[in-house]
């Protein structure tokens, strides 16, 4: 019954790759800053699905930590990458 979940995880990874195209191609710095948000949200979704597949509730804690850390990386990105003028 979990086969479809594995398929969904693979699809989510594909959307992550699709989003990465934008992160790599830019063109502006702000476009690259979107990476942390993209990884944060999609990563949390993947972990939640993995918790369902493996039936390990402990993974929910991993997802929570990821959700809490994602904004910190974004803030660091914004402060460090944005200061110099383009």
């Amino acid at each position: 019954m979990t086969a479809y979940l594995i398929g969904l995880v693979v699809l989510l990874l594909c959307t992550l790759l699709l989003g990465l195209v934008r992160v790599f191609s830019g063109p502006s710095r702000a476009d690259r800053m979107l990476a942390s948000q993209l990884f944060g949200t999609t990563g949390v979704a993947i972990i939640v699905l993995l918790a369902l597949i493996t039936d390990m509730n402990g993974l929910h804690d991993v997802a929570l930590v990821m959700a809490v850390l994602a904004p910190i990386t974004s803030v660091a990105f914004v402060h460090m990458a944005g200061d110099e003028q383009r």
Partner: protein
Amino acid sequence: MTLELLSVLLAIAGVVFFFAGALGLLRFPDVYSRLHALTKADNLGLGLIVMAAILQSSSPAQWLKLILIWLMVMLSGAVTCHLVARRARRIDSRVDKTLESNARQEESGA
């Protein structure tokens, strides 16, 4: 059984929204529109996936934890989106420089 089916449908819908978000990220013309796609579509996608997971788990503590995860992601998404948009605006707009310095003066005066 119907719950399981509903859960499957919700999870699939969630992935569709993630796909739409990534597509919007690729297709939209400027940073701000891409932020729209990333923030809204991905939050909704995650919400649907979280609901699918809630339908398949049994303990109330896990339901609440999943909802907490969603709330955290939503909060961080909104804050990040505002920060990135503001940074992008301040990097590429020189038109608003005077407006901005006026506002700063107001803030420091108040």
